[in-house]
């Protein structure tokens, strides 16, 4: 089924019943300014020309679409293509929206950049573009994530960013977002918040999506050139949902292309220790938007678990919630163990070490492939590279074996 993707969100930032602006009053004016600046930039061909130039010369776009021949043979099913976002500068797709947002910050005359980060990839991307433009930068990160992503903490500091550990709550991504919002509410004059996913209050889900859309636009052209037809299935992991919406969005009108988002199944849904919002969550309001949220009966936000810090979050972006209601996308999950097996498999068969986040998408392809024919085509978004994860993976694998 096709949905008219270009119409969303509506003027108040709603995707059907999802999204919106559920924020303290102090932020309303800031969001209004941000939206006005973005709409003006969006109409300005020079803005896009400048962004394209940086994406090409600095980020290294377009990223390749790679036919994973050995993985395809190994799984014995459809032809598997990998969209190589791991080859973008800084090693993940986060640089796409970081670059777009910092150009917006420059237009607005903001001199200080803040961001939250989970796995550290968004923090690294933000610290990178801030360094590149010579802007002050502060990154909020849960102390638990700082421990499991120590390499990225070092990278951010090397890039000149101040990394502030967040000790409250679960000490992971949701708490880092709380703290970044507290900073933004306080420093309203000079600060631009570079949001790390298709989450948060309007206009962030729209802005981040528009800057990530390049993934699907490129993929569409590349697969048409290579295969002369569109893929049958797109697969991407879903934390907040930025890499998946980036891949999916340009295909929404292609009714025959199936799209699957893969959430973090952690220790399994029954264990209660997971981050699969569409398998155990329900409608709630978190970080400025009405979305699917893992919460308890009293409306307190639940603690999540995933081996991958980038998927370890209680909510999922409003556009995903809407596309799921429209039956345009479907969502499943992969457990920690399945993701780690996929992490190893891709490393062995293709010489590509995927991020633990992206490994969830690969893990689902492993389940999907045997049920598909050799004539079919699957595109997986390899959203990031796994160098940051090797210590975490080694620890986990030793524990299991």
């Amino acid at each position, binding site marked *: 089924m096709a949905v008219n993707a270009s119409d969303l969100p509506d003027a108040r930032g709603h995707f059907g019943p999802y999204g919106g602006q559920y*924020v*303290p009053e102090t932020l309303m004016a800031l969001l209004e300014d941000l939206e006005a600046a973005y709409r003006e930039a969006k109409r300005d061909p020079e803005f896009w020309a400048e962004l394209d130039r940086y994406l090409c010369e600095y980020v290294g776009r377009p990223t390749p679409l790679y036919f994973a021949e050995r993985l395809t043979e190994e799984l014995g099913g459809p032809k598997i293509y990998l969209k190589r976002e791991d080859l973008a500068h800084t090693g993940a797709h986060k640089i796409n929206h970081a670059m777009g947002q910092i150009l917006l910050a420059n237009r607005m005359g903001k001199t200080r950049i803040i961001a939250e980060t989970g796995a550290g990839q968004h923090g690294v991307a933000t610290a990178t573009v801030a360094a590149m433009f010579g802007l002050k930068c502060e990154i909020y990160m849960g102390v638990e994530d700082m421990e499991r992503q120590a390499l990225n903490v070092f990278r951010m500091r090397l890039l000149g960013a101040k990394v502030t550990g967040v000790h409250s709550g679960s000490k992971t991504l949701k708490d880092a977002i709380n703290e970044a919002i507290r900073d933004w509410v306080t420093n309203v004059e000079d600060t631009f918040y570079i949001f790390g996913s298709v989450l948060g209050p309007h206009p962030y889900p729209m802005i981040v999506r528009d800057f990530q859309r390049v993934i699907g636009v490129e993929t569409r052209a590349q697969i048409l050139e290579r295969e002369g037809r569109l893929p049958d299935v797109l697969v991407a992991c879903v934390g907040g949902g930025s890499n998946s919406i980036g891949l999916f969005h340009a295909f929404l009108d292609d009714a025959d292309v199936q799209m699957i988002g893969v959430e973090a199944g952690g220790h399994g849904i029954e264990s209660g220790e997971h981050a699969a919002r569409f398998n155990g969550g329900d409608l709630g309001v978190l970080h400025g938007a009405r979305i699917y*949220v893992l919460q308890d009966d009293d*409306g307190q936000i639940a603690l999540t678990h995933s081996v991958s810090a980038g998927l370890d979050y209680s909510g999922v972006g409003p556009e995903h919630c809407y596309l799921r209601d429209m039956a345009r996308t479907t969502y499943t999950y992969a457990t920690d163990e399945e993701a780690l097996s996929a992490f190893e498999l891709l490393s062995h068969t293709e010489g590509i070490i995927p991020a633990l986040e992206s490994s969830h998408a690969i893990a689902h392809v492993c389940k999907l492939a045997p049920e598909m024919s050799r004539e079919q085509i699957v595109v997986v978004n390899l959203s990031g590279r796994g160098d940051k994860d090797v210590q975490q993976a080694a620890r986990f694998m030793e524990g299991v074996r």
Partner: protein
Amino acid sequence: MTRIGRRFEDLRKAGRTGFVAYITAGDPDLNTTHQVVLELDRRGVDVLELGVPFSDPLADGPVIQEASQRALAAGATLEGVLSMVAELRVETEIPIVLFTYYNPIHRYGVACFVKRAADVGVDGVLMLDLPPEEGGDYKAQMDEHGLDTIFLMTPTTRDDRMGLIASHTRGFVYYVSRTGVTGERDSLADEIQSKVSAICQYTDMPIAVGFGISTPEHVSEIARYADAVVVGSAIVRRVGEYQNDVDLVSKVGAFVGSLIGPLREGV
């Protein structure tokens, strides 16, 4: 008219500035909160703001964050807070505003919540992360049950929004005196007085000023131009400090008494 409206009417007649106290419900437990409320009533608090603890209080500074964590750890729930208000109403007529984030209410069901709040004797609700634009259904339910909807204005609220917010507000307008999260500050923000005057252009409702007000001196200063003064973190911090003290209730009461003092002198 709710107890809030009547209280502000009394204050106006008496020519006094009101004192609004915020405490986190359930910190350190609901029984203690119950006793603290009665003590604050005895001490002359005009309006009580009862904070509903939430796991992710993104507009709050460390003091209220920690109080919320303590309350949740002690088992406080929205239903527990509402039941406590029902019990309080046997003993006190102090005007009560629930101060809450939206998700617990959303989860409870807005219609169920408003009905239950009205039944137990809540007078008004302040929803921190629900601006008027998203709060149409909530506002309609609250109006139907005769409860006051209190919305915030802040230093970043432009004049064109003041009218919109004023039109959704009942009871009193809460002016957040500084950008930032809740918490004590050494000095007051600039331009509070001019902003309060600007708000007066859009509404006849009483204006309460809060955020960062921590000392009797701050209270005296704000009282010069606001209808009421709100103090939160300075009280909540003391509730935290006296947690294991058998005299928690009277010590918190004495502190609040010292804040109210300047408002009552010469009356």
